[in-house]
């Protein structure tokens, strides 16, 4: 491969600039990731091309986009995995600010509503905690807040539910599993967070760049914990199936 052909979605809704697709040709270099190709365009062809990025090392979760229709991190997607035609579009679940940048501020509003870490009065600093408890919750703490799971979730995409979305369930699971924390957030997650809307399609866990088993390890256990208090047909079903297996 010598060249990569990019088709990039451009728009700026609040300035009345409608959606169009701009085509660019970029020279290929070994090991190149999609973000490199976008930077090449920015540096050489169009410095106004808006893209959100920060670390270029798959650590910060800034550079989420739809690459050939799939939600992925631009800095973690190698060009040689895609072939020479690459289409890049902004995440679909959020309103576009400009070009590839979307407005994800809604997630910060949700984050404020989640009750923060609240240490149990019995815990005295410095805490004594066993490694096994740390390991158990580590998975959820690696979330880089890329919002890709939110982007693919059909419930979040449909906007008209109050569902917080998978990323926030992961956050709640991380807090609930903290051995020093003393509150249970599963009720908040149901009553305000709309967890009942999730029908465990597992789309979210398929796209997570941190390979967090969002549905299996965060959503289903949260559903199971609350099912005794609230009515959730899917939660009940999960529980019934599990019981039969045992």
């Amino acid at each position: 491969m010598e060249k990569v052909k990019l088709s990039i979605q451009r728009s700026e809704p609040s300035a009345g600039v409608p959606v169009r697709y701009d085509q660019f040709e970029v020279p290929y270099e070994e090991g190149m990731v999609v973000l490199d190709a976008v930077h090449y365009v920015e540096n050489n062809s169009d410095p106004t091309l808006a893209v959100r990025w920060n670390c270029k090392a798959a650590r910060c979760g800034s550079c989420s986009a739809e690459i050939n229709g799939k939600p992925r991190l631009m800095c973690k997607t190698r060009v040689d995995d895609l072939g020479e035609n690459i289409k890049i579009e902004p995440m679909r679940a959020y309103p576009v600010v400009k070009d590839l940048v979307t407005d994800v501020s809604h997630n910060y509003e949700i984050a404020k509503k989640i009750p923060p870490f609240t240490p149990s009065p019995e815990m005295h600093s410095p805490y004594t905690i066993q490694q096994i408890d740390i390991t158990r919750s580590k998975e959820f703490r690696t979330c880089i807040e890329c919002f890709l799971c939110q982007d693919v979730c059909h419930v979040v995409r449909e906007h008209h539910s109050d569902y917080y979305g998978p990323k926030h369930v992961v956050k709640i699971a991380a807090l609930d599993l903290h051995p020093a924390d003393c509150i249970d957030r599963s009720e908040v997650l149901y009553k305000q967070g709309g967890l009942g809307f999730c029908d465990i399609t597992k789309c979210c866990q398929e796209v997570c760049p941190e390979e967090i088993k969002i549905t299996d390890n965060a959503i289903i256990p949260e559903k199971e914990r609350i099912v005794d208090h609230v009515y959730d047909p899917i939660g009940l079903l999960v529980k019934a199936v599990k019981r039969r297996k045992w």
Partner: protein
Amino acid sequence: MSGKTDYSVVNTDLLIIGAGGAGLRAAIESAEAGIKTTIVSKSLLGKAHTVMAEGGMAAAIGNVDSQDNWKVHFTDTYDEGVKLSNWKTVEIFAKEAPERVLELERYGAMFDRTPDGKINQRAFGAHSYRRLAHVGDKTGLEMIRTLQDKVIHTDAKVMDEFVITKILVNNGRISGAFGFSIREGKFYVFRSKAVIIASGGVGRLFKVTSNSWESTGDGLAMAFRAGASLMDMEMVQFHPTGMVWPPSVRGILVTEGVRGEGGILLNNKGERFMLKYSPVKKELDARDVVARSNYKEIVEGRGTEHGGVYLDISHKGAKFILEKLPSMYMQYKEFAGIDITKEKMEVAPTTHYHMGGIRVNPETTMTNVEGLFAAGEAACGLHGANRLGGNSLSDLLVFGRRAGKFAAEYSKQNSVEPIDDKEIEDEISRVMGFLNKKNPENPYPIINELRESMSKRVGIIRNGKDLQDELGTIRDLKEKAKAVGVTGGLRFNPGLMACLELQNMLSNAELLVTGANERKESRGAHTRSDFPETKDEWKKNIVFTSSGDTFEMTFSPSEEPPEGMIVNIQKAR
């Protein structure tokens, strides 16, 4: 564009520029003190450069090696700074770091544990004892998330994707700052009684770097223009191990944790060369020593195919590596197609950290401009000529908290200064000037030329000729930079950001190279092939203060700590 451009005014008691570890910790302190606090950052909340930190934060808690105490941490830090650190800063740091780490745990951070359930601490280069609290190799992520959650549950106002372009001063006292929201594309004036700069380092001045795009040193350049002194600008840390291949990832960090957990360095003959350069500390000697050793092996022809050396941890086995170094495993697998549980990594030095920065009072973190404070990598005084791994994250907590505390006190005692309308108009014209140019010059080639030449001439081993040539290049680029501009508007316009950052980068580069040229000796991270010795007469800090269109350079003798503070570590053991 004609007529006046609109802007909004935000009235606040304290403005914090930067939402990395230092800025967030400061915000918690001042918000909890009941001070009206506003915190801004160029990137989204939770994405700052700090999020990348890997290995851990150093504090003499003594959970693993019970002999450890603040005095040993003081001695290690001061020694590695080769007498350029402000010893009072180091003392405060070493004493307060343990409490700050435990406090972070009380905020909800999780650290890996010892078998008896305490915070585990890992070995790191030139720390006498195992001292780094960590969680796998994602310590920065844990820190940012914990602080970010805490901040959003206070009254502090967060304005992210927001760039400050100017710090406003009235009669030598802070009056606020000016900038625009990148997301809204709107100008803002902050009227504030105090300002904290927590804007991070200058790593993007170099082509090969581990740093994120934010690290253009905006805070340093803005503080300098506002009258604050900068110090130790020549002191740049090159981390021994950055990725080298493929080109796309060149410079990305390979954590020192790999060596801390038992990784060894090899040349192309399979020799473990650190046995030769540093028989006792080996791979875990200070960063400058290991970086120079790697560099030597490479330039003397014992390097790898892509110009690096090998780093090998595969002998530790897959289970251990996946538990302790999950990000490194992912990084090599995804980006280089290498399985580090079976194969060797290729690594070479990369620009990593700036020890220099804004000169501050060790107690209060206030600069010489009243009401202007600085903390974190943007500030200067703790690390001297070389920083120990892990000392930055604890620095962010110790001095981030102090900045928040003292800036809050300052703003309680002082009233808000008037702002000159003309100054605002001038700044608006400066920013808009980049958008309204006829036939503008593209800023990117200039930035790329600067970064390339800085990496080539102002790297690990420096010499007078290269440094003078670089000063020439910087002056040429300054001329060229006058013509830069872009089309489009204020909102999410990377080209405009590049124009603004270029000015800051050139200002910082000029001082950095001037300092490096002036310091005719080798000390810590600053190595001169034409002046290889460390000289007693150079036991002084180089200080820059702006003066009209140019600057003044002065020398400030570095005071040694009182008798008895430095412990004999061999004895302590």
